[in-house]
């Protein structure tokens, strides 16, 4: 499907590595609409997120009465536990004596959209402790952040929490 192709392009930009099938979109007609989206799983257990939503709409035509009755949609949601969602990937920034403190603060503000105070807190954590966890969440996004940070020449790595 064309929707699948465009999604694959988007995901390729955001994701490097792994052996994960691309995004899958399914649309089954008619009257019953099933929309499924999944990204994952990786072989190394990196990303697994699935949202299934089943929406059923039944249209009943009453020719005699000349009216249309729309039944209430039934929404079924399947969610998975956080462990299965594999959320805890961390973006870690490491200390680097060359980068200026003001520059690092600006980069944190730009990349993560953090307010100045929070960006400074992370910068000082990097400076004093040698590293700071800037963000944690889905692997794809974490990879994108690391790439952006490398674009600003910061020493950043991707780490699995725990």
């Amino acid at each position, binding site marked *: 499907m064309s929707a699948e192709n465009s999604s694959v392009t988007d995901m390729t930009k955001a994701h490097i590595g792994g052996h994960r099938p691309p995004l899958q979109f399914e649309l089954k007609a008619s009257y019953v609409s099933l929309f499924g989206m999944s990204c994952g799983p990786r072989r190394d257990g990196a990303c697994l997120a699935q949202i299934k939503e089943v929406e059923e709409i039944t249209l009943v035509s009453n020719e005699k009465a000349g009216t249309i009755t729309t039944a209430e949609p039934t929404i079924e949601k399947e969610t998975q536990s956080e462990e299965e969602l594999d959320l805890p990937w961390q973006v870690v920034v490491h200390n680097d*004596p*060359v980068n*200026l403190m003001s*520059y690092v603060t600006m980069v944190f503000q730009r990349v993560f959209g953090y307010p100045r105070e929070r960006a400074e807190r992370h910068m000082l954590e990097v400076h004093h402790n040698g590293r700071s966890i800037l963000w944690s969440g889905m692997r794809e996004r974490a990879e994108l952040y690391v790439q952006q940070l*490398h674009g600003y*020449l910061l020493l950043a790595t991707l780490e699995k929490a725990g």
Partner: protein
Amino acid sequence: MCSNCTVTFCSRHWKKQVDMDICRRKSVIEISELDPFLAELLRQIPASANPDGAPAAEQRIFSPPIKGKATEFCAEWKMYVEPELRRLFQSATETVATDLEQLNGNEKSLGNRTLRIPAKHSDAWLSALNQARIVIAAKNKFTENELNDHCHSPIGSRRDLSLFQVNFYGFLQEFILRELRS
């Protein structure tokens, strides 16, 4: 907002002070009263930012995205992300090199020149200055103590000059950052 930078450098045989003024005028950052020595340091930004031939610098500029063993991931990063980063860095240094053409000419004409940097080139300058500082520091293996010694003097060796270069580029970065904030 204007800043004046007075630089003192000396060797065993001589001592000299050099000045420059750096100001923000509307959409331009203007560096005026530029001493030939500082002008030459500015002209060296694009060349200094090039890590080619220096594995330590190359390794620092294109640092691994993950610690430990993740060879497959690192290989893919090298294949897909590094070329993009290379293009990004090159684009920044090319923009800076174009701005620096204002300083081209013979040595005499370099005396007290003015360099005008369009404010929209600020990001390119920040990137190129950062690349240059990182490459120089990696090539010379400067320690944190050396890098924090902003009053290091005198300039008696190539290494001292490189350290001065890192600090001078840092000063420019600070000014540009301050302008971006304001």
